């Protein structure tokens, strides 16, 4: 018996363990002491993480397919549901578990009074995200998408004392439910076309043929998943939700849930749509490059304009998710490996930045940058998280984000999209400048209180009771470990090669289909060897950090223009952008509808122009 056939037996555990534990915790809600619930939840997460590590180890040379209920396909038709265990899905699931573990450890001291409901919902969230990463069935993907939403909506409105929390959670729920509806429509159209729900089977049934139904179905899936991924013009809910969600929830939303939207589209594309879109790659690429670029620039600009720390970090997430879409848009396995590395690097860095914000809220009862000015001068130690985090956002080596950007830049030069490093540099510069500015003002006391008249103050309720003079180790330690991991993992030998293998395996549509449908035992697909120049990415990231530092220093200096001397056009643009993010869910739904229609029309026209 080979290792993978033994390990295969535990494939269901990443979903079954968290769900089973959640059931026990819910059943014993009134009887379990708080510490017992913490212990059980952390144990379940550790079991999940351990299982996924074993799975990753067992698929390092060859992926395997696991059929629930033992229903292997008959003559190429799948009757049951399968998990496709390949290197990339395992690595993604491990990142999910690590972030959930951090969220649980952080909340040990964070919430002073909760029942087991928080644990139950986070465990449900964990099960949903793990299943989402592994599944090979389109409808099962939708089920986990919904499970993810059901737990995330409630977690987001956790602080039910505040009307703003309910408002933020409601905006999140309404927009994401419309997204889910579009996903379901897309699945129904593909089912009526092929009579299959298994992704490999749909892909094989479609072959190379693409007609209006297939294209529209893909547009609906794309829009639905990009609502979750907070891509322009579907990104509006994200900042509202992050501003109100408790910090451990922000870690999960920003660190991984949003990126799962990008992953789902990539998975659907390589498993199903690579054939039908083979003749329309140019059209799809141009559309996605434009969407990704707008998202990234808009997120960066909005990020710099915030004074509410969680909103600032939320807009930075939007900007970086835009960069991920740019990476995917190249529709190239090299770029896909870059996207994977970038997701890991960004997830670790962003989670620790949110912990940094949570620590400030815990210690000083505020996440308002101006109000916090100079108040953390005695806590330099925790400020290092912000410094290292800013480097990670800019992609300074040896961060994982640098490796990711390098792979994407390389793929971009191959298709003559040489402007992509510039977008990475711009977004990296602005978002890291915003974080550096926060560091300078809060930890060094630089700048004055009035210069940043951007955005109105949003009051934030403390999440922990009473004044705290010390910062608990369970808060600061995970943050440090994560920023250090984002730096240290880069030095692991062969990480780059492993990511490439994962990406090439995921992008090998034919091998994927025969693994799932014919039970073929095919090894991983390996990337062709070759060295690529680091220079463009080095230039891009050093520009990013230099401009980031300069911009942060300028914004804290007396030279930063006061409100009344800012040039009029700039004021108009910023005012316009801010008024778009109105917080009115009606506006968001209108933009969502228009965006879905526009993507459909533009993609249709582009395909017609490039030849049907």
């Amino acid at each position, binding site marked *: 018996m080979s290792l993978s056939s033994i390990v295969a037996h535990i494939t269901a555990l990443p979903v079954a363990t968290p769900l089973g534990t959640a059931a026990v915790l*819910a*059943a014993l809600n009134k009887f379990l002491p708080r510490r017992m619930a913490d212990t059980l939840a952390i144990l379940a997460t550790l079991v999940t993480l351990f299982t996924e590590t074993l799975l990753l180890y067992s698929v390092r040379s060859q992926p395997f397919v696991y059929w*629930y*209920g033992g229903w292997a396909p008959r003559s190429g038709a799948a009757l049951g549901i399968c998990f496709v265990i390949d290197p990339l899905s395992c690595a993604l699931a491990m990142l999910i578990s690590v972030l959930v573990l951090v969220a649980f450890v952080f909340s040990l001291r964070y919430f002073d009074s909760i029942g087991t409901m928080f644990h139950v919902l986070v465990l449900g969230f964990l099960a*949903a995200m793990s299943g989402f990463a592994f599944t090979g069935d389109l409808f099962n993907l939708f*089920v986990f998408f919904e499970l993810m939403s059901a737990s995330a909506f409630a977690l987001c409105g956790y602080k039910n*004392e505040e009307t703003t929390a309910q408002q933020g959670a409601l905006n999140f729920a309404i927009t994401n439910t419309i997204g889910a509806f579009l996903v379901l429509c897309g699945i129904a159209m593909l089912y009526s076309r092929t*009579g299959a729900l298994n992704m490999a089977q749909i892909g094989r049934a479609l072959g190379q043929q693409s007609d209006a139904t297939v294209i529209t179905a893909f547009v609906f899936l794309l829009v639905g998943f990009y609502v979750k991924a907070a891509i322009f013009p579907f990104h509006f809910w994200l900042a509202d939700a992050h501003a109100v969600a408790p910090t451990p929830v922000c870690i999960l939303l920003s660190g991984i849930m949003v990126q799962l939207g990008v992953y789902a589209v990539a998975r659907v594309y390589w498993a199903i749509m690579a054939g039908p879109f083979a003749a329309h790659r140019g059209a799809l690429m141009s559309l996605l490059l434009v969407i990704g670029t707008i998202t990234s620039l808009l997120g960066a600009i909005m990020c710099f304009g915030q004074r509410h720390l969680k909103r600032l970090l939320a807009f930075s997430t939007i900007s970086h998710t835009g960069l991920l879409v740019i990476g995917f848009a190249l529709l190239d396995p090299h770029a896909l490996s870059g996207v994977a590395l970038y997701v890991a690097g960004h997830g670790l860095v962003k989670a620790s930045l949110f912990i940094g914000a949570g620590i400030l809220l815990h210690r000083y009862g505020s996440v308002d940058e101006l109000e916090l000015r100079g108040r953390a001068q005695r806590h330099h130690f925790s400020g290092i998280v912000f410094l290292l985090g800013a480097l990670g956002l800019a992609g300074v080596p040896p961060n994982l984000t640098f490796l990711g950007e390098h792979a994407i830049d390389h793929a971009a030069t191959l298709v003559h999209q040489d402007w992509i490093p510039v977008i990475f540099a711009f977004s990296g510069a602005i978002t890291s400048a915003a974080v550096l500015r926060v560091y300078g003002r809060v930890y060094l006391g630089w700048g004055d209180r009035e210069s940043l008249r951007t955005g109105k103050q949003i009051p934030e309720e403390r999440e922990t009771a009473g004044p705290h003079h010390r910062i608990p180790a369970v808060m600061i330690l995970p943050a440090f470990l994560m920023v250090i991991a984002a730096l240290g993992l880069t030095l692991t030998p062969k990480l780059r090669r492993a990511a490439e293998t994962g990406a090439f395996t995921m992008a090998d549509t034919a091998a994927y289909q025969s693994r799932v449908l014919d039970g073929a035992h095919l090894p991983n697909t390996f990337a062709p060897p070759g060295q690529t120049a680091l220079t463009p990415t080095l230039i891009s990231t050093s520009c990013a950090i230099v401009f980031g530092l300069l911009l942060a220093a300028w914004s804290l200096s007396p030279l930063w223009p006061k409100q009344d001397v800012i040039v009029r056009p700039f004021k108009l643009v910023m005012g316009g952008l801010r008024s778009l993010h109105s917080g009115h869910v009606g506006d968001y739904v209108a933009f969502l509808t228009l965006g879905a*229609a526009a993507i459909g029309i533009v993609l249709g026209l582009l395909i017609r122009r490039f030849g049907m």
Partner: protein
Amino acid sequence: MNPRFRRYFFLISVVAFFGVFAWGLHDLPPFGHYRGPYGDILNHVAVYERHATDVVTAVNFDYRGFDTLGEESILFMSVIGTSLLLRPQKKETDNNDGKADNSLQRDLDESERRRAPAASDAARVLTLALVGPLIVFGWYIVTHGQLTPGGGFQGGVILATPPLLVYLAGDLKTFKRITRQEWVEAIEGAGIFGFVLVGLLGLFVGGAFLQNLLPLGQTGSVISAGTVALLNIATGLAVSGGFVQLIYVFLEQTLEVKLRVQGGK
């Protein structure tokens, strides 16, 4: 955006959206021309392989049973989430904080002024008479999922109605007693845990998660189709517990007020 502009903006977007939708739909196969292999294969093999006469249940709880675990969990998480969001707020439970606008007190005064009439005898007799038959009917639907349309989801919802009928009959004390949170939560959790446990059973005998390894029994008898019946019972528990909890958290506030009014009479 002002409301007027938003309305026109949305209307234009919707028209464009349905344009795209219609374009996508015109290439669909015509109505009634089912192309796929899935339905045809299952209709041929399900009764023979699973000894279940209701193929829909065989699909939901066996062939695609893993989806159902996810769907059951969606319901579970939604119920937990709803009770989390509707949990009594601090300012409602602290009675000694000295604030004049104690909302419970306000609700009490309010309901004193417009007290609803007590349930009539007709309503009481009818609703209470239905309680017993509904429990039997609910369990019938839950346990016959593999034979006739129905199953854990449908039966579970029916099983959740008797407490609501008790509430409608105006017997609030009994309602509070039979919806005790410890019990309801335990039933709900047991339903989810039971589903996972049946799934894990497959692993212990060397099969896959959710593999149906019990004897399949005689086609058409109540004890047939192996684990399908067990999974239906687990789902029935989770759904009935979940819906009772949902009813409870929605009525909790009113219930407290009404019980105080009754007590004060």
